[in-house]
């Protein structure tokens, strides 16, 4: 990891992630400092969720590596990944956050006060006994935030925390995120609402399978960058050629079936543009792709 990792909460090195060899995140380099409040934005399919899942270890790295600093990770999945028909009370859902301290067997009794405080903080006081299936979307999201509070992690990852959530709940939850930021926690959030990002998030990673721009929010969210991100993410090619980009480890992909997610016209112009945040570590951008067709 080198010296940069000392103060870094997360470090990505030549990171490529994907499903079935189609890269969803491509050659990502950079570090997230401790205490940073970072928004991850980009079009649908840009790899935001994939990146967050890879950080928690749920998606394997095709190539490259993720360096994690000390301290626990907490992760907020997209709400539809949770089975809300299971008859579980709000209190029990929030108490899941205690796992790192209680494990499968130790009693949670002595931590009742912490659970109650977390539930109160997110504005769900009095809902402890309600089943999660009876909550509205906003209430359920508040309960998941209470679980994050209980987890008390140094790094918090939020995957589209405000999708389908009304303005008032969103405001409450953003206040909570800012409080975590004030407590020195590292927070990464995948988001869609640019106004929200501009208002509250000091730093932004604009992702479109690769880092289009990464840095101070105002410098990243320019019209030029955003339209570039839009073009990049549209290019998906079923028959894409092997990516010939050297990843700095000397093992280029060698299989003819390997895939490349970008259209030829998009990538010709788009060599990595590294801003101050991204190591200009690999200066070999020769592309050797067969002419690619756009998928249907």
């Amino acid at each position, binding site marked *: 990891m080198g010296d940069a990792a000392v103060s870094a909460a997360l470090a990505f090195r030549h990171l490529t992630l994907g499903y079935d060899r189609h890269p969803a995140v491509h050659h990502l380099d950079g570090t997230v400092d401790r205490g940073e409040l970072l928004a991850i934005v980009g079009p649908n399919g840009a790899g935001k969720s994939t990146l967050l899942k890879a950080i928690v270890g749920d998606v394997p790295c095709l190539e490259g590596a993720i360096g994690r600093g000390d301290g626990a990770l907490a992760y907020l999945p997209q709400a539809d990944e949770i*089975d809300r028909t299971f*008859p579980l009370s709000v209190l029990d859902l929030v108490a899941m956050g205690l*796992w790192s301290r209680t494990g*499968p067997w130790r009693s949670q009794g002595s931590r009742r006060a912490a659970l109650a405080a977390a539930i109160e903080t997110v504005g769900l006081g009095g809902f402890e006994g309600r089943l999660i299936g009876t909550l509205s979307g906003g209430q359920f999201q508040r309960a998941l935030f209470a679980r994050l509070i209980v987890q008390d992690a140094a790094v918090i990852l939020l995957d589209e925390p405000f999708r389908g959530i009304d303005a008032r709940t969103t405001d409450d939850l953003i206040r909570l995120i800012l409080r975590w930021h004030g407590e020195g926690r590292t927070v990464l959030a995948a988001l869609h609402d640019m106004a929200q990002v501009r208002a509250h998030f000091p730093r932004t990673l604009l992702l479109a399978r690769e880092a289009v721009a990464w840095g101070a929010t105002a410098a990243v969210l320019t019209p030029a960058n955003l339209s570039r991100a839009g073009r990049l993410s549209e290019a998906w090619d079923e028959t894409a050629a092997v990516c010939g980009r050297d990843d700095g480890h000397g093992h280029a992909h060698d299989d003819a079936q390997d895939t490349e997610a970008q259209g030829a016209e998009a990538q010709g112009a788009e060599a990595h543009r590294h801003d101050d945040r991204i190591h200009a570590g690999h200066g070999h951008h020769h592309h050797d792709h067969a002419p690619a067709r756009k998928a249907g």
Partner: protein
Amino acid sequence: MSESLLAPFLEFGFMRRALVGCLVLSVSAPPVGVFLMLRRMSLMSEAMSHAILPGVATGFIVAGLSLPAMTFGGLAAGLVVALLAAAVTRTTMVREDASLAAFYLIALAGGVLLISLRGSQLDLLHILFGNVLALDDGALVLLGGIATVTLVVMAAIFRPLVMECVDPLFLRTVSRAGGPVHFAFLGLVVMNLVGGFQALGTLLAVGLMLLPAVTARFWASDLTGLIPASILAAVVASLSGLALAYHLDLPAGPAIVLAAGGLYVLSLLIGPRGGLAHRLIRRRHLEA
């Protein structure tokens, strides 16, 4: 009424043994069934119960109607099919329910064929539908052992098992327990099906596992209510099923499962949580 319910058990030793066997099964199988139902794996357990058959049949061919041999064969076959189905699901595009259906059809046909090669029609009927009135000491000890292991393991994995059901991704982010917990649970399913096979046969073994669990859904809303309610339903079904079988001279296994089925239909009609009667009587809604 209570006299005719209890008389056969007071009078005959084999009825008492049958009752003890069914009650032990009623304590261990329904909690497993509750989790199967909540994980939407009800049909999967049905498939697993058929998957036990070729193992039982192999034990039968090797050692005749010997309980240990058939039990061991059933356990082995059930675990192999569960693992194979999981492996096929993880490595191919086939979903778990489809791959299980494929495996259990193969297993069921193979098992029936194996038994027919060696045994009589009566043996086949005995294995398919069980013989709860012929439980011997060995069988009772086995059922007791299965119940003990089931309850201890359930208690040990309860918390991660619930998390695995609700939010598997969360469990994966905080612990590696997800995989082992899933397989431990599948092991419990197989064990209880093998236990059920002693009493109810391979085809109906699932009856005392699932019917009480589904019945409980109409009476309780969360796990602390569902599990006791399901056990209670299984106990009532065992008792009334055996008594009915005695008085009306019915085969005992189907009578028990039908009694459990009757409880289910009754709950469907009058159960306080989603029962049909409670839908007809519409109470005025609350203010908030």
